[in-house]
């Protein structure tokens, strides 16, 4: 069966043993039965009778198994029988049976959704159970069955909160999930500025709150709904759980429900998840990133935990780098230095991915804390002379971002970059530098390097890669445009008379375009010579300088026109037409010299910021689609004040400390009732007696169970 080999043929032979007296045989048969019942519903039904008998066995463990098996058999016909069995189980003496009943509820619902009303009834009984390990599965069943029926939760709310610390980890997870949702829906949130400097959010429903007596001094104390406070305080011991999922759940609870003081306490345990095995560490890091993006401050002192190790796999170091950059603005001076030098170290590494990410991380650091931007820039500038083309181009992209954020103070930086243009061979890097020069072409028109750079670049135009050529053409367009813009007073009066600048394009270009390719080439050669000849005499007159720029521009157009790339040819034609007529110069101005938006390199996980902490969607990320994975739901918004359910609903009528005697008597009553209602007609009086006698036996373990916990 476990090897996916056919074992169905033995079905009848195996199932015959269902009535076997031996417990161990029964166990295996039950497992087999649950596995195969769906394929052989008729034969499986034959076993139901025997299982039903076991439901009334004197051994609670047998009853547990029978209940579990019966609900596990996926044959819809028996849904009513299962429902009755659950009802019996809910009233059972042994908490283990009650637990099994709780676990059976979702299975029964899956079998036949029509049983929902009955099952909800059972659930409300089980949610109020006094045994902590019954409540956990009951909450899980509730979440499965009817997570929106919060009315059922009002009454057991306080007992749930009280039992939170004692439940097993899985129960804690379910309960935390439920109560986080519940709190959002039932405790309205009101923000009020208590002091002008510190706006404090506090939760308050003063009209209905009977317990909250301290509303009188609310201008000083942050008043959380006492019931919510109860939950938050009950979560605290869970932070020392060994189960990472519990810790993340508590963090979620604090993050979405509580004031920042609470979350600060939870950060340490969250960071401690970095000790867990790598698979869980990965998930924990996702959550850490998500929390740190909201509130980075408390994480700052744990920076050392996020240093990247040489043997971290890519998915781990990627997240670690991200955490480091998020924390960077909040660290002390010492740690800032450490982070930067760490990033510098990794940017010199050999893994191209790691290099790229760490250079980007440096950029994000500089962006996050402008006071260190200079330091970052210096490091990046140091790297552009590296032999590693990948590193150079990545560094330049980041440098470009940094320069764009503060263009005025970076003129000298651009100059330095231009010096590197001669040695840089990486096309991306060259393109970036050329683009930057174009951006700075309009600054200080009298003393600008852009035309000169353009002149030098054009010489090697044919040997450049396409991306660089595009940038050269763009640079030419910008230079020419600036040239046009600076000289309008000259041009305008001259415009009617066909002279120089306005005239030349109209006159010469048609010629050029009309010429065949050979002539064009000749022209090009000619103008190259002219061009170089002119440029070799830097002491040219003022008018000639202007002339030169026009010539330069035309030469570029010519070069681009005969390029092999249609994209480049298109671009050249676009710029040409744009700049040809004086009327469209304004348009060109808008197009080419529009102020560029300051680039903002977001953290890679920026898109995940609003996803629910601890969810699988957070881990899968954008891949999961716009709405997240199926079934993903974010927390509901805070309930509008005034619409919350009356808090008096949460008042617990049951006595806080039920002694074992009262438990047994009430449970006994329940058993009687269950028997009378459901089974009276079918069960004999003799069996009822047997049940009673069994209940007496059961008293022992319940009591001892209490004692065992009591020492705790």
């Amino acid at each position, binding site marked *: *069966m476990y090897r996916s080999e056919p074992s169905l043929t033995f079905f009848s032979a195996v199932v015959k*043993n269902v009535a076997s007296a031996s417990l161990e*045989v029964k166990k295996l048969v039950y497992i087999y039965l649950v596995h195969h019942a769906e394929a052989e519903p008729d034969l499986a039904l034959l076993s139901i009778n025997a299982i039903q008998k076991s439901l009334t066995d004197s051994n609670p463990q047998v009853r547990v198994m029978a209940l579990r098996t019966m609900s596990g058999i996926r044959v819809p016909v028996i849904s009513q029988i299962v429902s009755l069995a659950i009802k019996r189980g809910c009233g059972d003496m042994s908490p283990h049976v009650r*637990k099994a009943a709780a676990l059976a509820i979702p299975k029964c619902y899956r079998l036949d959704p029509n049983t929902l009303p009955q099952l909800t009834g059972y659930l409300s009984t089980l949610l109020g159970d006094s045994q902590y390990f019954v409540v956990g*599965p009951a909450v899980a069943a509730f979440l499965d069955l009817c997570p929106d029926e919060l009315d059922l939760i009002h009454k057991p709310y306080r007992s749930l909160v009280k039992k939170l610390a004692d439940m097993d980890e899985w129960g804690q997870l379910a309960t935390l999930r439920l109560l986080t949702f519940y709190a959002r829906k039932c405790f309205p949130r009101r923000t009020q500025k208590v002091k002008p400097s510190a706006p404090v959010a506090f939760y308050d429903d003063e009209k209905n709150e009977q317990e909250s007596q301290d509303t009188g001094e609310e201008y000083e104390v942050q008043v959380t709904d006492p019931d919510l406070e109860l939950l938050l305080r009950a979560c605290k011991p869970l932070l020392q759980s*060994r189960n990472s999922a519990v810790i993340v759940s508590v963090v979620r609870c604090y993050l979405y429900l509580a004031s920042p003081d609470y979350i600060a306490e939870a950060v340490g345990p969250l960071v401690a998840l970095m000790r867990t095995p790598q698979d869980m560490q990965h998930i924990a890091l996702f959550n850490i990133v998500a929390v740190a993006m909201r509130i980075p401050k408390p994480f700052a002192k744990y920076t050392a935990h996020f240093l990247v190790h040489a043997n971290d796999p890519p998915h781990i170091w990627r997240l670690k780098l991200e955490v480091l950059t998020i924390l960077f603005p909040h660290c002390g001076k010492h740690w800032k230095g450490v982070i930067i030098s760490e990033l510098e*170290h990794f940017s010199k590494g050999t893994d191209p991915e790691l290099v790229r990410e760490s250079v980007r991380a440096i950029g994000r650091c500089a962006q996050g804390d402008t006071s260190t931007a200079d330091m970052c820039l210096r490091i990046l500038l140091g790297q552009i002379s590296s032999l590693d083309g990948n590193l150079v181009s990545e560094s330049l992209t980041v440098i470009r971002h940094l320069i764009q954020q503060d263009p005025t103070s970076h003129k000298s930086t651009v100059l330095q970059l231009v010096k590197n243009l001669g040695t840089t061979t990486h096309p991306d890097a060259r393109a970036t530098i050329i683009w930057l020069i174009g951006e700075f072409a309009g600054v200080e028109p009298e003393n600008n390097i852009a035309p000169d750079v353009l002149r030098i670049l054009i010489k090697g135009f044919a040997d450049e890669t396409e991306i660089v050529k595009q940038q050269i053409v763009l640079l030419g367009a910008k230079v020419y445009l600036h040239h046009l813009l600076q000289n309008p007073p000259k041009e305008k009066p001259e415009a009617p008379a066909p002279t120089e600048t306005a005239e030349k394009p109209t006159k010469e270009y048609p010629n050029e375009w009309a010429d065949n390719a050979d002539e064009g080439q000749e022209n090009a050669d000619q103008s190259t010579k002219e061009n170089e000849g002119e440029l070799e005499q830097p002491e040219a007159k003022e008018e000639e300088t202007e002339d030169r720029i026009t010539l330069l521009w035309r030469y570029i157009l010519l070069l681009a026109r005969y390029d092999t790339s249609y994209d480049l040819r298109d671009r050249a034609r676009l710029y040409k037409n744009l700049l040809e007529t004086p009327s469209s110069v304004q348009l060109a101005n808008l197009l080419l010299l529009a102020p560029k938006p300051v680039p903002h390199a977001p953290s890679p996980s920026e898109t995940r910021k609003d996803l629910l902490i601890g969810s699988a969607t957070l881990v899968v990320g954008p891949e999961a689609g716009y709405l997240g994975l199926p079934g993903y739901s974010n927390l509901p918004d805070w309930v509008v004040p005034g619409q919350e359910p009356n808090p008096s609903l949460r008042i617990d009528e049951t006595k806080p400390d039920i002694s074992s005697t009262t438990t047994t008597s009430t449970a006994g009553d329940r058993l009687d009732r269950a028997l009378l209602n459901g089974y009276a007609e079918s069960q004999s009086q003799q069996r009822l007696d047997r049940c009673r006698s069994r209940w007496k036996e059961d008293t022992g373990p319940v009591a001892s169970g209490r004692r*065992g916990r009591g020492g705790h």
Partner: protein
Amino acid sequence: MSAIEAVYIFDEHNNLLLSHTYTGRPSPPSVLLPLYLQHAAPRSSVLYFPSLNPSTVLYSIIQDNLLFFSPSSGTDSGEPLLVLEFLHRVADALEEFLGSPLLASKIAGNYDVVAQILAEIADAGVVCQGEANALRDVVETGPGVLNNLLGKVGLPGNASVPGLSGGGGSLGIGGSGGLQRPGSGISSLQPAQTAQGSAIPWRRSNVRHTSNELYVDIVETLSVTLAPSGRPLAAFAYGSIAFTSKVSGVPDLLLSLSTGGKGAGMGHRGDQLRSVMERTVFHPCVRLARWKSEGVLSFVPPDGRFALCGYEVDLLGADTPLTAGKNAYSSLGLPAGVEVTTGLGSSGNDFEVRLTQPSNSGAAGSAAAASLQSNLGGGGGLGSRPSSFRAGAAGSGDSKGPSLENLVVRVPLPTTVRNVTELRPSKGEAHWSPVDGCVEWKVAAKDFGPMGAVLRCTIQGPLAADGDDAGAVLNGLTATTYDYNDDEPSAYQAGEKDEKHSNGLSVPVSREAKVAKSRELMPTSATLSFGVKGWLASGLKVESLLLDNKKSRGLGQEVKPYKGVKYLTVSREGIEVRC
């Protein structure tokens, strides 16, 4: 709500070993495995396959070379960590029943036990019993279980049964199987007789042992990052207290630890301890209130071996000393240090790894061991652990003095390195493995004297495209310097001053181009692994382990359990030096 839909286990060759479906109709393992294998090698533990119908999130862990899968289809199961924790618990439970390490053959030979474990640990996908020890109450491990069933079905149990036992008699069903069932020998009681289940959720009921024993193992794993200058950037010791309890009845234990002088002046003892042991996590059995108020661990343990507590220690202390300088190893008290010098040789493609031994580290360790003896002696019968308990323990260094072992240095090299032409270790063995692209250097502990050791490597880059310098192939003419640090003092245990080798290697000049070229081939870090028995980096000590006879039940007044304590510090590539 989150539901576990199925558990699939694959062996090391990715053959399906087991599939257990809890609920729903999850994608079968035959579909998931190829999709999983499509992803590149370091795979994320959570993978999303939108192409499947229904789209599936696959959770996976790898333990003991076995691959555990749990698919979750259709819904956002809420907590990925829950599923991963669950898979880890399944692995733990299997280990508890089948013995460690988990082997494919053990699982294949014990399907009856495995089936019960999986059925009990979660019910229709809702995890309901995560405690491996408590599972002992409900899982039958008697030798004849399956035989019994097979007999009833009318099939011969020991003969080969093609369908049901899935592979014939070779699996060793029943008594003929060579596998011992752990637990059945220790406990005189068949577990399932305890009809009501255990009163303490993590401890099985009616524990009986003929010899009562308690063992505390404190294991600390180092994670240290050193800057090229030798200054520690971060130094943590991740500790865990593994407790082994083999005591009858329901014992109530009190474990007190002491900090060994650290954190003094932090108020009373509990505060000191808490300032050293940070971010603790506990097994649910620990009473948190007593830890908070007194700083002691008071608990009723599960039976057998379990992880009592996890903690971490910041070895640098709260305020990082900015001027720690190069005596980092001594300030951390590490038993060995490593340094890497790159860009040596005539064309700069040599590098040198130097293992050093700061001398004062042993002192603290032996002191800890000594005081341990005196402290626990009063508590009742401390002795060295029976060597059969753990095979490795037979060596030296249990309580007499810490001993260093398994010293390994790994130097990962860039992928562009084509070959390492020369490996010249002064001690130990070194080899280069092209597959994972790193040089591994093992030094036997007995060889690793106070002198330290040096490894010199020459690396060869890719066949140069420009061809002129012949791919920077190095002839063997590089001046190799075997620098033994003669100024390093004395033995490991002897506590004296820390050494610092000052002999800077004379770096040849006028080879900038080659050096710059080979700089890209140089390693950027090196990691050091070792294990030290009898010493803890944090200096923690077990002060006493008391068994509260009043609160405990089922244990005679006169019974004094045998107690043992073991300290171990390991670094699994945990010490990393940047260069």
